[in-house]
């Protein structure tokens, strides 16, 4: 018998019988165990409007030194406006903002010497090469830099003499990152650094960002790739319509907003009914996938035992808990398409119903 796995599981946090639900990262440490000290960024009741549109509606959050913090949300959620206010590129309408102890609008010029920024849709002079770009930025910042070493760090040394206009999308973004690193910044703002990149280029960029985190850089990331945020971030905030609708570590958010851990096997509706009848557990069937909601590790053993004794065909055993994608769909009421466009739940369910 052939079974189809629903696309909804694609972004799931898969783990083979890894039942660790309930554990969360200590709030004083990053997921990599780096001890955090004072805040790099403090935002309180931040507001910004464009005419009648309230782009940022009284949000508050803080980012501790040494952590990777991601701001998630669909297009128009207010992410870029927020990050541009923090970068000192836009003036806020209300609230207070402190970046490395300074007001970014008032002290932007001095502050930029301590910041590394990749703006959304990074671009550069079309006829300049990455090597020239790094030397140019080094001179502007008044620092001595080994251009080749920086380009090696972002894995761009093989294209160091190619004109910017001839670089691929991923290479252009890497150059943006290289330029953001020229002044050895305390704090990095990466505004959608992987948007539009192919999966391989995106993974390359993730490797570079992980390397920077290990070096102890504080990183604020905006993205609409939930998988990216989940993989890279110590803490995440989800924005929609100018407000932060939830925040915390990915594990905290999943624990707080998710529906817990599930055991899943490929099977048919009869198997789902059998396990439900025998165990009384919350069992669902959808698109060839039987899903059993677990409350503890004993539930997993009981469910598995009943699946095995049913005599019905099954395969591909795994446990799974809600991903950020699942949480996002639940909170925002849709999922994110490539480019940050939000798709309504009805669109999503239509694509997933196959064997019903």
């Amino acid at each position, binding site marked *: 018998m052939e079974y189809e796995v629903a696309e909804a599981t694609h972004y799931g946090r898969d783990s083979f019988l890894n039942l660790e639900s309930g554990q969360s990262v200590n709030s004083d440490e990053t997921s990599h165990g780096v001890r955090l000290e004072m805040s790099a960024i403090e935002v309180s009741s931040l507001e910004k409007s464009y005419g009648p549109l309230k782009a940022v509606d009284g949000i508050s959050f803080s980012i501790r030194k040494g952590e990777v913090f991601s701001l998630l949300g669909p297009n128009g959620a207010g992410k870029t406006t927020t990050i*541009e206010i923090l970068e000192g590129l836009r*003036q806020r309408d209300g609230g207070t903002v402190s970046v490395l102890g300074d007001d970014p609008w008032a002290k932007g010029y001095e502050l930029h010497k301590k910041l590394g920024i990749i703006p959304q849709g990074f671009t550069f002079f079309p006829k300049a090469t990455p090597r020239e770009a790094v030397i140019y930025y080094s001179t*502007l910042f008044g620092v001595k830099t080994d251009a080749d070493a920086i380009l090696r760090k972002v894995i761009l040394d093989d294209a160091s003499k190619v004109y910017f206009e001839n670089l691929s999308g991923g290479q252009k973004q890497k150059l943006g990152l290289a330029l953001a690193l020229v002044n050895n910044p305390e704090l990095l703002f990466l505004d959608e650094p992987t948007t539009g990149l192919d999966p391989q280029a995106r993974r390359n960029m993730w490797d570079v960002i992980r390397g920077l985190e290990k070096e102890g850089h504080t990183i604020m990331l905006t993205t609409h790739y939930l998988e990216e945020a989940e993989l890279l971030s110590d803490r995440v905030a989800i924005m929609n319509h100018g407000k932060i609708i939830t925040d915390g570590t990915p594990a905290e958010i999943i624990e707080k907003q998710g529906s817990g851990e599930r055991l899943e096997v490929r099977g048919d509706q009869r198997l789902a009914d059998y396990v439900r009848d025998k165990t009384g557990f919350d069992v669902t069937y959808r698109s060839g996938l039987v899903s059993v909601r677990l409350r503890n590790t004993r539930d997993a053993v009981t469910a598995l035992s009943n699946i095995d004794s049913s005599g019905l065909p099954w395969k591909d055993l795994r446990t799974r808990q809600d991903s950020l994608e699942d949480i996002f769909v639940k909170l925002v009421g849709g999922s994110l398409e490539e480019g940050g466009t939000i798709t309504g739940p009805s669109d999503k369910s239509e694509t997933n119903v196959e064997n019903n």
Partner: protein
Amino acid sequence: MVHPSRILADLKVFVRGYTRSKIGLFFSLVFPIILILLFGAIFSGGGGGPINVYVENQDPNGLASQAFVHALNNNSTTTVTLVSQDQNLSQYLLAHSANQGVLIPQNFTYDYSHNITVSVTVYANPADTSSPILYETVNGIVTSFNTRGSPHLSISVQQLSIKSQSYKYIDFLIPGLVGFSVLTSPMFSLVNISSEYKKTKLFKQLSLTPLTKTEWLTSKFIWYVVLGIISFVLMTQVGAALFGSHLNYALMIIPFLVIGPLFFVSLGMLVGMISKSVESAAVVGNLITFPMMFLSGTFFPVSQMPMYLQNVAHVLPLFYLIDGLNQVMIYNNFGQALFDLELMVALSAIVFVLAVVFFKWRED
């Protein structure tokens, strides 16, 4: 605070981009040379169309003098522009970069009707190919008057040279095209750059570095001064080598080659910044640039244009740049050149301030 090292770094990266794109270099350096070759070749053998003649009629109420002016204005070779009686025609012609003029004396009608010999004076530049045509035309009218009025020759023609030195069309063309180059290179480039950088948010990116707006503008200004000087040297050398132009080279030329780019870099920047899109910036830029290009004495002396167009020319900043270069390079008239320069400095200061005010790295 302005840092020379940052200006130099920005200049380096800009010049590299400029020279690598080739298009900019073509329009800055090669295109004006092509225009010199083209116009030089076309007009080296004489021009076409009616010759504009400045006529000072000191006998405005006399019937004969009026008939003379009418005859001069109603033939296929000359048209008349009347000059006020209180002008010194010779000086007036110099000031208006004009090569042809006719002076009708106060007692013209009286002398003509009483068979007393009277002279009309033709002012002409012997080197100008139009001058013999004017002389022949005036001669023809005089002959006609003498035949009709009296058996005696009562009108004679006196020919005066307006300059001791002879000038050719190419001598007027070169300062005009230097002005053309000083106008077009920075204008087209800055209009495009500023609107494009605004659209692609490159300005926003630059604002994240210690580079200041003034440093960025300064590096562009320096490049267009250098480009203007290179263009000037190329054009004057080509003009001299191929068409035998001979112009005066004085230090006074340098301020014009500096203030011109400052004005047009600022104006281009201003147009780019106040325009909503790259496309609208290009339209506004062209609306400003093209009338200036053709009406400021770039290809033909302004004095040869109809009076209403001359009035238009006098409100165009490029006119004062080209006129200043003409005054230095052709007429050795440093007084008038200084006036043009002062005007350009004042205009440049205003436009520069406006450009800086409207030039925004960041958004409110």
